[in-house]
């Protein structure tokens, strides 16, 4: 029977081609059987794990749960068909993500394969890049440095302001920072911007393999224009880039090997230079006697963690460090979170890094080292996550009494946030 009479050439060709398939029965059985076994292995592993009482996708608190008919019925009565479709869509997407990430098979394969890729092909993943001699770099730093100039009109025009994650979506940081500086000045407060350069921009030879040495730090094409624009508008900018680059060239490692952040040495040198910068420009009359203690410390490195290797066999996970923990006289730990001080440091993970609990002694973070070099208290407000949201930081400053007794606000920002952060302009409109 033939119901089609039109151009059937392609179909006829395909049918003839499939008819010419040449495979021995044993080969066809082997290929088909192995394929089906492979397909069934995913579910079989989950079922086996569930039978032995292990928590997995089918058992325990983390198991996949579909919305019940009763829930969907209630939702349909309350909000209609589209709401039910939305609920099912979210459940479906969540299940797909969970299976992709947490299935037994994925867990069993991911660590060893990532280990092979990083060891033999110097390949990380979407978040981590591998350089020479086990140096790790943050992909966001790479995107910032190689991306479009963040002040280019075409880039700014596309800015959405709603937590953009791509250079082409970042609104300009310039009006946001100028607005904050003006608002603080109107309250009689000083303002200093401290852009912390990217590890990749400072230690780029360690990514490229050391064929080229020396020369300036690498930066986004708009970096210089931004800092120049701010300075021209009267904003104080303390740029530690030359200092850190100099350290890198001298082999003093201002950044950690397995982590995206600066090293204790980088923190210390920057804090010392910033203390001088602040004393030269602002009248700071508080005094506090602080001491430091040299300690050995191991940090769980963020990039080593993001690499996704087996934690038991991850050579990049722990970063051995020597830190300078800050104490008050008598050995009482100094905490940068006391909230007291004429200098308020508002920052991100670069400021928080090496905060220590009381048992481990005083902080060795940027605020504590700054306090040590100033020999004066420094208040700090910093967050690791979402620290690149400008509006959130302004929100902190708006809180009651946050600016009481301050002389200067230091805004520390990771340089990459100029193109990857959310610079939606926010003003200090609430009276303090």
């Amino acid at each position, binding site marked *: *029977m033939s119901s*089609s009479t*039109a151009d059937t050439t392609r179909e006829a060709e395909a049918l003839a081609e499939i008819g010419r398939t040449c495979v021995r029965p044993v080969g066809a059985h082997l290929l*088909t059987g192995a394929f089906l076994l492979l397909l069934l292995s995913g579910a079989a592993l989950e079922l086996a794990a569930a039978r032995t009482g292990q928590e997995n996708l089918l058992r325990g608190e983390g198991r996949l749960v579909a919305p019940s008919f009763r829930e969907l019925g209630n939702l349909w009565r309350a909000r209609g068909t589209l709401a039910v479709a939305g609920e099912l869509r979210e459940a479906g997407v969540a299940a797909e993500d969970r299976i992709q990430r947490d299935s037994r098979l994925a867990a069993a*394969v991911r660590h060893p394969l990532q280990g092979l890729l990083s060891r033999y*092909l110097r390949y990380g993943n979407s978040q981590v890049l591998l350089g020479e001699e086990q140096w790790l770099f943050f992909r966001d730093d790479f995107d910032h440095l190689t991306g479009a100039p963040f002040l280019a009109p075409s880039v700014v025009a596309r800015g959405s302001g709603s937590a953009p994650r791509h250079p082409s979506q970042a609104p300009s940081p310039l009006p946001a920072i100028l607005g904050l500086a003006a608002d603080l000045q109107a309250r009689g407060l000083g303002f200093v911007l401290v852009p912390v350069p990217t590890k990749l921009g400072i230690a780029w030879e360690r990514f490229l393999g050391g064929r080229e040495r020396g020369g300036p730090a690498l930066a986004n094409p708009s970096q210089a224009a931004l800092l120049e624009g701010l300075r021209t508008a009267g904003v104080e900018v303390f740029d530690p880039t030359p200092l850190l680059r100099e350290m890198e060239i001298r082999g003093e490692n201002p950044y950690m090997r397995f982590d995206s952040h600066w090293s204790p040495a980088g923190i210390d040198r920057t804090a010392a230079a910033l203390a001088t910068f602040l004393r030269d420009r602002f009248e700071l009359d508080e005094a506090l006697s602080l001491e430091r203690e040299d300690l050995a410390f191991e940090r769980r490195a963020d990039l080593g963690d993001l690499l996704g290797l087996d934690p038991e066999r991850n050579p990049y996970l722990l970063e051995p460090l020597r830190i300078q923990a800050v104490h008050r006289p008598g050995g009482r730990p100094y905490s940068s979170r006391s909230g007291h001080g004429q200098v308020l440091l508002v920052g991100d993970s670069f400021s928080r890094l090496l905060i220590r609990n009381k048992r481990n002694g005083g902080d060795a973070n940027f605020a504590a080292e700054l306090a040590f070099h100033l020999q004066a208290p420094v208040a700090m407000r910093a967050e690791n996550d979402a620290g690149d949201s400008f509006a959130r930081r302004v929100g902190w400053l708006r809180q009651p009494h946050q600016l009481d007794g301050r002389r200067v606000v230091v805004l520390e920002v990771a340089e990459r946030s100029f193109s990857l952060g959310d610079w939606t302009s926010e003003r200090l409109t609430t009276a303090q």
Partner: protein
Amino acid sequence: MVFSSQLFLFWFLPAALVGYYLAPRRLKHLVLTIFSYVFYGWANPAFLILLLASTLIDWIAGLVMAGTTPWSRTPIEILPKGVRRNRRERLALLLSVTSNLSLLGFFKYFNFAVDSWNGIASVIGVDAATLDIALRVTLPLGISFYTFQSMSYAIDVYRGDAKALRNFIDFACFVSMFPQLVAGPIIRFSEVADQLANRTHTLAKFARGVAFFSVGMAKKVLLANPCGQIADTVFDAGAPGVLQAWHGVVGYAFQIYFDFSGYSDMAIGLGLMLGFVFARNFDSPYHSQSITEFWRRWHISLSTWLRDYLYIPLGGNRKGVRRTYIHLGLTMLLGGLWHGASWNFVIWGAFHGALLAIERAVGVDRLYGWMPRAMRVATTFSLVLVSWVFFRAADLPAALAYLGRMFGLGEAAGAAPLLSGLLLGPYLAVSFAIAAFVVWGAQQSWTWTRELTPLKIVIALGLLVVAIAALSTQDYNPFIYYIF
């Protein structure tokens, strides 16, 4: 749900295969349709309504053209060819074409139309004419594919190329078949009508399907995704150097080829596992020695669809030289617009249309005949690369800026060495080199899977295992053509 995901491989596909093969013969299409609707609805259940509506309309249109009802017992006859259709038949076709094009037009082009109108109004300084419309329409997955596929049924029935289907499930199965529902190949009803009625399920067919699927999976995961990283890195870069820009666009050419032909291979493989034979969709397109040849080798199911349902009905080359070029240009413009609602795709289509017109006017032999074969291939590939810039770039200014970079306009940024550091790293460099070898040095899937020797069986299984393992280290990577 994408083929290269654990959900599909380890949960959906085994369930679908078991369900299909356990079902009695008369229920196989029902089972396949149910699984296909689950597959499609996973991304957004709300869009199942559109799929169902498109299916229902064309099914009804087919019945109306055939002058029958679902409950009639009279055998359906194929409409005679060369006979003027009556009013009822013409109206039924009109219903099918307008409803499908309306669905496609609204869901795919509404945002584009509003944005374009507002852009033009703004440029000519008539801000009062801008449309203040808050509505943003979400593009339903695969709508470009299934509307064309569904519409082809009504047109085939109207032309007398195929018999109308009385059984709704059979028709719904044809429209929604999950192997090729969201990204093709576009299956024409006249091509699979016989297979819907009668097809075989053999071990050799299934085994070849597995081989196709494995090759397709390896193309997608092991080649397209790493090449995609190369392309993404360079296209997102502010100021790449000349060589980097070419490296990036070649990376994209490899990505889109392995991504789409990999998907097509997987679709063909899955079809074979279910007893269906789909025609080839790619035929080593980067071996082409002219743009005319490229379009005989690239996305063949779309180019032949456009030829048979648009170019030829417009008049093709039967209405004089001038009209031929108009038809050609219009077909390629619409072909570009079919891919996506943006001016980049319009320009991409126009660029190809212009090249086809030039080759037709001057003659392929006169244009390229004096070149050695390798040079003809390189020239064609270079022209295709230029067109891919419009396909890949975020918008028109970005595309023009990128083309400028390719041809040496502007200085590379200070951080450009970092790009080379990443692109020439061992993993991406090796992937790129393998991709180039497969493009120009390896057999294509249809030839490679024809004779499944023991070594090829081991290779096919090995590729599948390695690709599945590699999936666990990669982020979510949907197929490029999912968004079309």
